[in-house]
């Protein structure tokens, strides 16, 4: 029989029992819908992670105290070995370094009149804003003189400013951070919550001020290094490592007491987390696909039994076993295939609803669509084969006598 004829015959017998067909399809529709929307959610999360990592700044190397993690245990004991001198040395001696931003941070109570909030106090340089893609919304950044002289000036993150001042003008006002007074010289533009930390909820002060007057420490918690555009970031990373090993007097066989992270590592780390998440969700969703397949098998078994006589007639007028097999196989493939297509529609709708009610933007990927059409077709074949085989193997005489 010709392909189109088989398809027509299969379609016709499905239409003859619309309600049953739709019920059989429902399993696949829900299954594919679940897989599509879960994968879309995963892809959306992945995209967002990428965006955030990119938002942290391009060409960025982050130097932190402590050695690389080895089997989950930090090898180095010292967390206090990254000094201001290291930051200055990186800027002065390593080629292709565009700018650096030393950082110290801690939490502190911040007060203005009767309002107060507990927030992150970050001591850094004005270069930090550029490296981390912050823009000053009102006022100005630190000057280099303020940085060197431990000036008591502060720049507020957008939500901190809102907490303390609500709609009042913060510029020039005195706030209390810990035990000393700071003058507000700027407010940052809002960046949006980034999940693991909120960049809008913090107070920026010059690093020298933070080290001497607020946190009382002589070591840094981080050095951000911006590499010149187009320069070899790996070469710069190696040079920074060499420089710091020399400055920290680490012998050639000793472990680093610091580590340098680049963007690629951040991306890798973040995407491996979302990937695991996606696989998990997708895996749970595909269980419903299998259940849908079993539903199809069940319906097909009933259909074959019901149409035993038809099968007998078809065989009597010259249908080969193969013809009967393909006819019923086509029916189950049609059920699962159409179910799959509707499931894609459902997946899209669920994605759309999610994007309406949350700030997630699920991304339905082409691979996910191709995959689910393929999988639902395969389910049609896999779960339809046995009933179709039973139909094909029926003895024509027995089938003709079947009441």
């Amino acid at each position, binding site marked *: *029989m*010709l392909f189109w*004829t088989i398809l027509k015959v299969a379609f*016709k*017998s499905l239409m*003859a029992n619309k309600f049953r067909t739709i019920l059989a399809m429902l399993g696949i529709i829900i299954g594919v819908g679940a897989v599509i929307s879960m994968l879309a959610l995963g892809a959306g999360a992945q995209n967002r992670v990428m965006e955030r990592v990119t938002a942290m700044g391009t060409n960025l190397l982050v130097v932190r105290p402590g050695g690389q993690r080895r089997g989950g245990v930090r090898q180095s004991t010292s967390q206090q070995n990254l000094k201001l001198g290291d930051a200055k040395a990186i800027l002065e001696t390593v080629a292709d370094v565009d700018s650096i931003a030393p950082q110290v941070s801690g939490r502190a109570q911040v007060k203005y009149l009767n309002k107060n909030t507990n927030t992150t106090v970050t001591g850094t340089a004005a270069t930090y804003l550029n490296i981390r893609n912050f823009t000053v919304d009102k006022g100005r950044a630190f000057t280099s003189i303020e940085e060197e002289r431990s000036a008591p000036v502060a720049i507020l993150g957008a939500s901190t400013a809102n907490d303390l001042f609500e709609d009042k003008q913060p510029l020039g006002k005195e706030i209390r951070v810990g035990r000393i007074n700071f003058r507000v010289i700027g407010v940052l533009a809002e960046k949006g919550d980034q999940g693991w930390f909120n960049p809008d909820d913090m107070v920026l002060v010059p690093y020298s001020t933070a080290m001497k007057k607020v946190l009382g420490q002589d070591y840094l918690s981080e050095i951000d290094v911006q590499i010149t555009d187009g320069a070899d970031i790996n070469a710069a990373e190696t040079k920074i490592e060499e420089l710091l090993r020399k400055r920290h007097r680490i012998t050639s066989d000793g472990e680093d007491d610091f580590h340098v992270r680049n963007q690629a590592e951040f991306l890798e780390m973040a995407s491996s987390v979302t990937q695991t998440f996606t696989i998990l969700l997708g895996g749970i969703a595909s269980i419903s696909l299998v259940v849908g397949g079993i539903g199809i098998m069940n319906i097909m078994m009933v259909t074959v039994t019901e149409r035993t*006589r*038809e099968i*007998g*007639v*078809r*065989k*009597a*007028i*010259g*249908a*080969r*076993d*193969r*013809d009967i097999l393909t006819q019923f196989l086509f029916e189950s493939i049609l059920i699962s295939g159409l179910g799959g297509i509707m499931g894609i529609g459902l997946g899209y709708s669920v994605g759309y609803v999610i994007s309406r009610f949350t700030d997630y933007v699920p991304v339905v990927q082409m691979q996910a669509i191709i995959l689910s059409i393929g999988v639902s077709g395969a389910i049609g074949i896999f779960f339809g084969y046995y009933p179709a085989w039973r139909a094909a193997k029926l003895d*024509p*005489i027995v089938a*003709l006598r079947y009441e």
Partner: protein
Amino acid sequence: MSIIQTNDLRKTYQLGETTVHALDGVDLSLEEGEMVAITGPSGSGKSTLMHIIGCLDSPDGGSYWLAGEDVAGLTKDRLARIRNQRIGFVFQSFNLLPRLSALENVELPLLYSGNSDAKDRAAQALNTVGLGNRMGHEPNQLSGGQRQRVAVARAIVTDPAIILADEPTGNLDSKTGDEILKLFQDLNSSGRTVIMVTHDEYVAKHCSRQIHILDGKVQKG
């Protein structure tokens, strides 16, 4: 050469403990263009004989030559092909497929043989049985006699040499039964071999030859 030739055809069924000899050594020879009635009481083995002649069933012993070809050695696909091309079946209960129009029912055998002009030939067959104006009707919109005509059209659409009919008038009143009988006689006079299984003496009398089966054996006379 006979179109149908059987030698010592045997078929047994196991019914619980007892073995039923449905066919117990049937020797039969039918010539091309004959119109034969196979008669006998129920349980005599006439249906089994017809199934074997129609290549729906295979004998346990003996041999069956269809137009000089030994059917015993043929594959299932080849047998399906024979049913499709050389034999046309007409059943007592019509056995039309519901939800398909008369035309689509008649078309079916041609679809299995992959004919490209299936529609035209099916229409032609329906015209032959006098149902040219009922092509779009589904079986449940047709009377019993009309349904049997559709079934006859389906049997002749591939232009087979042999028409096998199992009690073709059994579910019809005598008037429509006569019409159907007339139809078979017309088919026979156009050169087809017609074999009818019946227990109706009236039907049997309209055939050129009667073969009486009793307890799986052909009765002489």
